[in-house]
């Protein structure tokens, strides 16, 4: 049970790490346009198959 003393801080640190990554994604504008990327993935297939 004492392992919790170790586990809980790890869980919190991990959570904090993800929050930091989330913050990074926000500030780099990844969430500004949520609709267009959904369509964009459909259109890239042709170009990729042409790539050498």
């Amino acid at each position: 049970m004492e392992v919790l003393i170790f586990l809980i801080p790890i869980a919190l640190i991990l959570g904090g790490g993800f929050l930091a990554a989330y913050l990074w994604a926000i500030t780099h504008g990844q969430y500004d346009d949520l609709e267009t990327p959904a369509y964009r993935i459909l259109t890239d297939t042709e170009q990729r198959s042409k790539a050498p």
Partner: protein
Amino acid sequence: MDALSCALNPTADLCQHCGDIIPLHHASREFCCSGCRSVYGLLQEKGLGGFYKLLESHPQKVRRPALESTESYAYLDDPAFLEEYAGHSNARTLDFYLEGIQCAACLWLIEKLPDWVPSVTHSRLNMADSVVRLEIRPGAKFSEPARELARLGYLPHALKKNESSELLKKKENRSWLLRIGVAAACSGNIMLLAFSQYAGAPKSFSQVFGILSALLYLPVGIYSAFPFYRSALASIKSKKISIDVPIVFALTLGASMSFWNVLTGNPEHYLDSLSAFIFLLLSSRYFLRRLQQTGASNGSLTSLLTPSRAKVWQDSKWIEVSARSLKAGNLIRVGTAEPIPADGKIIAGKSFINCALLTGESQPKLQGIGDIVYSGTVNEGESIDIEVLIPGNDTRLSKLLKTAEEELLHRSPAIEIADRAAKWFLLGVFVLAIGAFFYAGDTTEGLSRALSLLIVTCPCALALATPLTLSVTLKRAAREGIIIRSGTLLDSLVHAKNIFIDKTGTLTKGRLEVTETKWIPLENHERREMFEKIRSLEENSPHPVAHALRRWIDTELTAPTSVLNVQSRVLLPGVGISAQIKDDWVSVQRLETPEWLSDQKLGTTFVAIYHQWAGASTWHKIAEFALGDRLRTEAPVALNKLKKLGLNPWILSGDRQETVQMIASALKIPKEQALSGLSPEAKKECLIQHPNSIMVGDGANDASALAYTQNSIAVQGSMEASLRAASAYSTRPGLDPVVCLIELAYENKRTLYRGYILSITYNLIAATAAFMGVVSPLIAAIIMPLSALTVFTSSHWRPTRGASWKS
């Protein structure tokens, strides 16, 4: 085009570009119109045939036939224009709103612009608001990509760079997202800890977890919930009570009690529920925000009012500038079928001016030297030179549209009612909470009941459902091609009794078509020869009569025809045109009303075709044509639907009485409700006399009537003018979108009521339970988000009625 037509016509040819069924009488069996044909050709030429493969994955989208445009967009290169719209005159980046964006295929095509327009380095489309950001090479001009986009059918409208508000919007969105993220992370962790507490952790652990939960709650309660505190404080200061006040109260009370418990060693707390609640509420508010931001925002909509172009005589040559930069005294030239960009006096030339925009007359007036002409009217004849008297914002048209703009800033009454109801709600809940406290007798029990009551009674219908329902309706309307500017529209559409419909363009096709024709007896091959000659004669003329004749001949010919060489074309001003073709002479001339046509058909214009054989000296009249503006095919059905919706239909028109009455009887509208010969001001009068009416009309011509009432829908017409005047604008022609919009409005109301009923029922049951002590604050905090979720789902659920009603 739709399931019904396909069913009736299983072997019909489909247009290769837009997928429309090609009517049987069309000569071409591959394309439905020249617009589609040219776009198809363009795509093949550039090696962009992949466009059609992408289209296959969106079969349910009805592709609109390509819009034709012959504009040069030279005004985009005017340094003054760039200065105003892009910030500086050497700008290399500019945003454009594009008409006609539908799906991934469009996205692909537009983002491929750099591949086939060398001056473009970067092209990025935002599908949510149909805005493309174009970046060009230094030294290149924006008119080139604009023309290419227009050729493909995506009419571009330059958007002004509204830096401050756009940046602000972006920053706000981002900070909302961050708050949601923090709330989610922390509440998740608190819930983990709380779970073990429920599962029966030993006392010492439980206390530690309690402290940890309290620490984790701090970011949520202070940072994430901050918007609620701010808004609640603001509304208290202004003595109005909004939804956020009871929410903040519950949050504060719950958090305080929890912290007190934790500090005194009692591990029971409600922080998991409170933080989850904050997360859910924030998410739904954010979702709403994004929904409302879809489609061009109000700010950018007004900058859609691209100033029209003008050809000005400057430095001994004609150059194209934006109409904004015209000054009094400038000499401008307006060619055939071009709109007049400013109020002025004709200096040279004589022509027919279509004043439908200002007077509603569909018959163009002959104007000559010395006559005053107005901005917005269209020159239908030869080129004329005009001296500008009043440019820019003081023209008659601008003044008309300005009053329209000022009347468009209203919030939705539904939301205002919701806010007002919140005041009573709060009072009621307070009273109940105090009552519960005393009723319970015991202090802790009383406090606990009061807290449960405060948490469980959720003003969800008011806080969430109303704006959410509205937003979903707006989004659906946008999918149908209807842009709604004013929130009041949906509410007022439902209460309307009358609907006033402008005739031209809404009930009728809005363009001249051949309705009846009479020929002298001719052999088939002779007749065909005549068709060829007439067609060649009218081939390059932009005149509406020429268009109508060409279209009619195209349908009469069973095989494609070649354009014959036209020698010596002679223009007969005010009368018609003559030309020599293969040594014979052909002439198309206006005719006074022929007796055999006078009171039967919807003719407003009559022409006769004369022919003179080579070498002969006499002209023979070979044919007479009646041309008119035909009723739209869907009009009778649409009108029936409107009547079924409980609306009383009226026709308003600036046209002659006979024409209007003919349409009225065809549509089974009583004579008294078909008004003719109306000026724009008179149309407005009608609306003043009949409050509670809907006005449907052309955005430009009926501007003053459309602007007067909030209940206005503009159908086609130029997008720019329409958006200024009306509360809603339909990008599809005809009455069908209007019917669709009204049905949407009714459904909106039904969904709202459903949300209200759900919420009231829930509140009654939950409040009673809390009052009686059946519900602990913990359970209350769990139930409440669930009820919020239910109302949230209910706002989205619309019973499917057909293929186009998807969420």
